């Protein structure tokens, strides 16, 4: 088989960071090559070089035996490369079909040919998922649906090399399986595919070969998947053994602390009620779009409830007053990092201390740089945030490290109840297990942890009790002991759906 895509000692240096150090490997046509590695290992940087977004400091990219130099993303697109980024790049106020064909809209008599446009879009979308209407605006779609639009874009361009940067982090299981069948199909048609993910089970399911990165270097390449195990991969990625990434710790529960009663509001189809005790980790599972994020925003006060109350230790919270929620120790680490979490043009330190700095400041007004710096250093260490300095702008951090910074922002607070909405999205295995440990110790010190996740194994592995949501309402509650994959899924799947 011929090597279709080849990296030839590619290096990339940023101020203070050597993101890639002499990377060489090749990918065959008709194969799926997995890229694994810790947060900040350099995976996305490599894909950005492939897409023409970055110019390598040294080294070369070869496609089909020819050295190609890209001076911009257009060059790469013309060379038949499509990269589907970790952070989606869609125009929110345009329709799906306009986004799909942006840059090469079909024309008739010099005007946009809407009919052809719709048809092309519909065909591409149909091979992924029939649910998306080409006429809807991107803004109205869920993150999962937007991801599918991105993939459809690559399909329309008929790219020869397709690179996926954590494509499944926001997809439901069903959508993941659909994506895999699309990838298998592309593979059958001789495309060279690069696949970045932190989910090892996916990598085993879809990849023919794997390269593991650490600190910008290749640790090891594996061509034979049959001899490979989870443990070997983890050891190569993290550099140490992790026996059980959940490593669940049993703990006693105290009296009831958080009480949500008959809460209704946007995104919910029935009043939601639940309680959490001190020391408890309550998991929320549901498919993408089940209303978990909406419910959490109502609880936190980021959205105005139509009715219902949230109380902590018997004290009713001020409805839709985020400031008062935080002051009462109720915090939410939001799901959508890019839109709701990061301040890209601010430093790591400013991002971490965004909310908690009021506690460090004098009269709530004059900030205390010393305390802020100490807090920043503490979390850079604790969550192993990879950054050259605490003054680095957040946009220069890798996706997973940005997520850690947002987590640090909320862990800095004086918490009684913490709601974590998909906290491990885009986070590497090693840090994931650290985050679970942090959740256990928060609970052990008497806090409530509300943990929203679309990854069933981690919900089953970490939560003491699981609430399942389906189309805007809570449909079931399972204790840790009774919860199994089947039971949870049965509750979460639409009643009519037979998947």
């Amino acid at each position: 088989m011929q090597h279709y895509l080849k990296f030839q000692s590619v290096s990339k240096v940023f101020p203070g960071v050597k993101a890639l150090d002499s990377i060489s490997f090749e990918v065959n046509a008709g194969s799926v090559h997995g890229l694994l590695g810790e947060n900040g290992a350099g995976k996305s940087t490599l894909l950005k070089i492939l897409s023409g977004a970055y110019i390598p400091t040294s080294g070369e990219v070869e496609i089909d035996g020819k050295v190609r130099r890209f001076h911009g993303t257009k060059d790469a697109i013309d060379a038949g490369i499509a990269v589907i980024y970790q952070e989606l790049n869609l125009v929110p106020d345009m329709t799906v079909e306009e986004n799909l064909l942006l840059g090469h809209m079909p024309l008739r008599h010099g005007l946009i040919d809407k009919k052809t446009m719709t048809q092309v879009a519909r065909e591409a979308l149909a091979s992924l998922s029939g649910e998306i209407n080409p006429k809807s605006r991107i803004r109205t779609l869920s993150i999962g649906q937007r991801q599918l639009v991105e993939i459809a874009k690559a399909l329309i361009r008929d790219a020869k090399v397709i690179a996926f940067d954590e494509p499944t982090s926001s997809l439901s299981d069903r959508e993941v399986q659909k994506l895999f069948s699309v990838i298998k199909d592309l593979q059958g048609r001789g495309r060279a595919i690069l696949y970045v993910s932190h989910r090892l089970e996916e990598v085993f399911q879809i990849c023919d070969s794997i390269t593991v990165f650490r600190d910008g270097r290749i640790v090891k390449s594996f061509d034979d998947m049959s001899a490979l195990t989870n443990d070997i991969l983890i050891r190569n990625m993290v550099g140490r053994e992790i026996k059980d990434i959940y490593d669940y710790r049993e703990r006693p529960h105290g009296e009831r602390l958080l009480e949500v009663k008959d809460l209704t509001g946007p995104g919910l189809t029935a009043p939601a009620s639940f309680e959490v005790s001190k020391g408890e980790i309550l998991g929320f599972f549901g498919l993408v779009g089940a209303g978990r994020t909406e419910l959490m925003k109502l609880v936190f006060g980021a959205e105005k409830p139509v009715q219902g109350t949230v109380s902590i230790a018997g004290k009713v919270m001020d409805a839709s007053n985020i400031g008062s929620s935080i002051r009462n120790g109720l915090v939410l680490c939001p799901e959508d990092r890019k839109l709701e979490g990061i301040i890209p043009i601010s430093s790591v330190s400013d991002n971490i201390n965004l909310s908690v700095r009021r506690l460090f400041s004098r009269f709530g007004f004059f900030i205390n740089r010393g305390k802020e710096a100490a807090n920043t250093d503490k979390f850079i260490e604790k969550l192993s945030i990879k950054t050259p300095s605490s003054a680095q702008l957040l946009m220069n951090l890798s996706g997973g490290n940005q997520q850690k910074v947002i987590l640090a922002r909320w862990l800095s607070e004086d918490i009684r109840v913490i709601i974590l909405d998909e906290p491990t999205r885009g986070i590497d295995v090693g840090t994931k297990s650290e985050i679970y440990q942090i959740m256990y110790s928060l609970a052990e010190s008497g806090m409530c942890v509300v943990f929203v996740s679309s990854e069933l194994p981690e919900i089953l592995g970490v939560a003491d009790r699981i609430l399942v949501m389906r189309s805007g309402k809570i449909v079931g509650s399972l204790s840790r002991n009774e919860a199994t994959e089947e039971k949870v899924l049965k509750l979460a799947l639409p009643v009519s759906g037979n998947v």
Partner: protein
Amino acid sequence: MSANETVAKKNVLKGLWDNAGMLVVFIVMFCAISLFVPFFFTWRNMIGLALSVSMVGMVSCTMLFCLASGDFDLSVEAIVAFSGVTAAVLINLTGSIVIGVAGAILSGVLIGLINGFIIARLKINALITTYAMQQIIRGVGFIVSAGSAVGISNSRFFGLGSGNLLSIPIPVIITIIVFIMFGILLNKTTYGRNTLAIGGNKEAARLAGINVNRIKIVIFTLQGAMAAFAGVVLASRMTSGQPNTSTGFAMDCISACVLGGVSLSGGIGTILGTIVGVLIIGTVQNAMNLMNIPTFYQYVVRGLILLFAVLLDQLKQRKSV
């Protein structure tokens, strides 16, 4: 290895350009003008230059906050004129300087408050809101003054604008104090940091418990107050309240900020940069006057400078994507 070194060197240069690019531009420009334009680098002219930028300087401080939070304020120029007229009318009416100054500043506070309320609470675009407010206030200024300058009878009031302290004009001293105050506000207080956070990502700031609306209202209120104060100083210098003064003043302040590296899309801005921006604008103006360049050409040059500033902003943003 040598490739790495050149990269490192390039990065150092880039960092210098990002942080101090306009400062270097200013220093080079200042030296060149000192060499080639006679009478430029003299104590007298330096004092004149400082005096001429003092009002833009003061209001650029509040404009910096406004832009850094991702908003605009075009109403300041009308506030300057209106507060001058208000001060003049009140002083003539009551004979009290205190009442005149307080009344003028209060009117600015009120206008700023209304701006802030409309923009933050009613979620109306800041550009449109403050442009409308500019028209309204300009109009009210003409109505109150009956369309012509209102001479001020109490000459003790003129000390504010024309007095000296240690042979430095009072307005210049005030401007320096304002710069220091707002530098502290921006860098050392939660108010300043939160302002930048709002400009950087409003939703993230809101979800972090920052009261976005309140901060915006404070920003516009302070802006109104500062513009009104500048208007009082100007009236004192001109010994009258003039309803038609300071057209284009808002854009001068915005250009100064942008020249100083404040991002038009919010989230980025430094007080040092703003000072440099103000000085660049003032120096160019001053040099053109010394060289007797006709007003018509001065307009062209000022326009070009603004264009240059916005281009710079664009370039910086493109790089950061």
